[in-house]
């Protein structure tokens, strides 16, 4: 597979403050990559480096083979970008905004009007009179309307109501079916699970891990519930990978299991078991695993 987005040892410092440090990232053609992490982790800094808005302190980044800083105009021809904060020209109407941005891209505005219609966005009003959600919808239209081969979105559902979020997921899936590559940052875990093939977890400016969504869910963390015919045996908490063990009603135990399940099964098999269920851990659990419960709620 061809690499569409590539970052090699990418670093960005703001004076003494580290935005991103030594980040390596590769997103393949047609892939949807989720960039997961709380505020201040370095998601937006990475995205702005990819868009040529920030000059990397060290390392390099390319989009479709183009250097994101030195060839930023070429990159921006190929990328649809949705910033994290929606900032638009208040004096323009929605329609005028679409026309203005479409002109930069030599793209007919009609595609933008159609997208706006699907999102239920009124275009004959000045943007200054739009609600936060309407502005977000318009920003989404601006990012998608030129049908770019690469989409980079910073927290795309920020400020959208649930119904519009569903429409956006549909739009993104349609876009992907057309062969587009998608990178988006989020701290909305179900959203990442819903859209992405792979996820990168970023912490304090460094990429902690990159995993396939299925791998994260099925291999790394499990929620296990066992109902024994008799009392819960002692010593389960000492098995490798077992945590958060909770005994209920004397014969029921719930625990989290990280890593191999075999040692647990072999141990449990020594006793009479009434029920045994394994659930895939949510990304919330995965997230907390990487960040620790005291840091994971930063959003």
């Amino acid at each position: 597979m061809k690499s569409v987005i590539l970052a090699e040892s990418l670093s960005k410092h703001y004076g003494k403050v580290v935005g991103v440090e030594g980040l390596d990232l590769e997103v393949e053609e047609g892939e949807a990559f989720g960039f997961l992490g709380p505020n201040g982790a370095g998601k937006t800094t990475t995205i702005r480096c990819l868009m040529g808005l920030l000059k990397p302190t060290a390392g390099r980044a390319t989009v479709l083979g183009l250097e994101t800083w030195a060839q930023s105009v070429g990159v921006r021809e190929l990328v649809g970008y949705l910033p994290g904060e929606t900032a638009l020209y208040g004096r323009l109407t929605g329609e005028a905004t679409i026309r203005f941005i479409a002109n930069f891209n030599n793209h007919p505005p009609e595609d933008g009007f159609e997208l706006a219609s699907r999102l239920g966005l009124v275009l004959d009003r000045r943007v200054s009179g739009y609600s936060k959600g309407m502005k977000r919808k318009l920003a989404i239209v601006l990012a998608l309307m030129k049908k770019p081969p690469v989409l980079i979105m910073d927290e795309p559902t920020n400020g959208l109501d649930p119904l519009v979020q569903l429409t956006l997921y549909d739009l993104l899936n349609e876009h992907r079916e057309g062969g587009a590559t998608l990178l988006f940052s989020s701290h909305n875990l179900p959203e990442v699970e819903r859209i992405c093939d792979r996820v990168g977890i970023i912490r304090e400016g460094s990429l902690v891990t990159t995993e396939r969504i299925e791998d994260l869910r099925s291999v790394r963390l499990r929620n296990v519930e066992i109902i024994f015919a008799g009392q819960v045996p002692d010593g389960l908490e000492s098995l490798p990978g077992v945590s958060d063990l909770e005994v209920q009603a004397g014969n029921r135990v719930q625990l989290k299991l990280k890593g191999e399940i075999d040692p647990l099964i072999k141990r449990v098999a020594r006793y009479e078991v009434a029920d045994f269920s394994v659930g895939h851990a949510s990304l919330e659990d995965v997230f907390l695993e990487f960040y620790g419960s005291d840091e994971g709620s930063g959003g």
Partner: protein
Amino acid sequence: MNWNLIRKTISDRWRGTAVYAGGLVAYVLMLAALFPSVQKVGTFKKAYMKDLPEGLIKFFNLQKFDVTSFDSYMTLQFLGLLWVIVMAAFAISFARNMVAGEIQDGTLELLLAQPVARWKVMTSEGAVLLGGIIGLVATTVVSTFAFGAAFGVKLSYSGYLAFLPLGIALAAAIAGYSVLLSAVMREPRRVAMAASGLTLFFYLLHFGGMYSKVLEKFDWFGIFHYYNPQKVLSSGGVPARDVLVLLAFAAVFFAAALLFFQRRDIAV
């Protein structure tokens, strides 16, 4: 340059520019309407000149000031100071919104997410700013001609035509460092304060040079050393050296702004 951006900038700024133009026209109208009365007051010249500080007379080059001359009257009442303030206000308010204003509003991120080079963004907006300056200076000159004729005032047509490039060059120089400050700073309010402060500094440097030998040595460093409307109106000739120096000021500052903007991180 990018025509899409030029069209949008004109659409954003024409109302504000029209207000400035309207103010200039109204003030010229008032001066031209009042001038015949002023001219008739025989004691005015003596009393008025007697009350003016010597330095001020030297500053405005009014040694040969004649209140019966519309050109001298225009210099003293308008082109020497008030007109400069109006043009500086226009250039600074326009420039402060170019980069710093767009960063504060967050719209620069939207703009620079489009396939347009940074230098094109700045030169497109700079071209509209220069167009506005030319328009306002032309408005001043044309309205002077029109109201001068309407009120039967005798004026130096060649002098005002020669003032055109000088006025444009002075306002362009103010715009040049204002744009640079906008490219360097984050907050438009600070840009406006710094640019106004710098303009005032140049003005006071020139004014102080009239009194102080020390300051006089540094006068060439400021833009007002090259701006003498009374001399231009009375001679009727374009002060080519002064115009070129002021345009060089503008070009150097604008080039520095371009260079800085080209390398600047855009983080809202």
